[in-house]
């Protein structure tokens, strides 16, 4: 009868043939890893250098009367692939942010009960007046969008620089 356990037969392991990693080989591996990480960092730097500036179109978002105080409206800015949210703050001021949560890009919405922007995916909360993170896992504030109100119409002008 064969006393070898099943897994040994299925996955034979030749200890003698399995090469040992010497300290020197390990050192070489570490040096290579260090080189790889340096290249990675260089790659990110190059990506940042050659990153195309996003367009900054001036678009009409809505009429002031379309968004009552305490309400919000979704729109796209600067391109059709960038969801954004416009909020009419109590007191009359308008603010707008990218709607993509800075954690994992779920869409935030205005929680009218708490008056905060809420990301339902992992319960992230943002201050509706500033876009700053109030609670939850988002690592950065919501990117803001500059607005101007001209003769009753609200225009998105550009993304606010961080």
């Amino acid at each position, binding site marked *: 009868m064969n006393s070898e356990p099943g897994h040994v037969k299925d996955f034979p392991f030749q200890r003698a043939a399995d090469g040992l990693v010497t*300290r*020197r080989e*390990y*050192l*070489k591996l*570490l*040096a290579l*890893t*260090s*080189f790889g*990480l*340096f290249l*990675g*960092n*260089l790659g*990110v*730097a190059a*990506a*940042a*250098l050659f*990153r195309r500036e996003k367009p900054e179109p001036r678009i009409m978002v809505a009429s002031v009367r379309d968004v009552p105080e305490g309400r919000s409206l979704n729109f796209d800015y600067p391109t059709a692939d960038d969801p954004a949210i416009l909020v009419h703050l109590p007191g009359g001021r308008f603010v707008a942010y990218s709607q993509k949560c*800075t954690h994992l890009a779920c869409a935030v919405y205005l929680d009218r009960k708490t008056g905060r922007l809420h990301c339902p995916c992992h319960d992230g909360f943002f201050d509706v007046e500033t876009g700053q993170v109030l609670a939850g896992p988002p*690592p*950065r504030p919501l*990117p803001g969008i500059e607005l101007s109100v001209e003769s009753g119409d609200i225009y998105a002008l550009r993304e606010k*620089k*961080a």
Partner: protein
Amino acid sequence: MKGELDDPNQPEYRTAIVQAKIVLLLLVVGIQLFLLTVTVDRLLAGETGEIAGLALASAISFVIGLGIWRVRA
């Protein structure tokens, strides 16, 4: 034995150096890993101002790591 680590021809001496090199290189790799995560974070946040400095720090770390690796044991 007394003084055995003072003699560069002793295997113990060389082993100690190789081990020290491993620890130092691990430290360098750890620092570079940290630098890379910060760089990616900055890129995603659109704060590209510090990225060149971070890449330079990674390059310096790599050169230090290379020096550590090439030191004779």
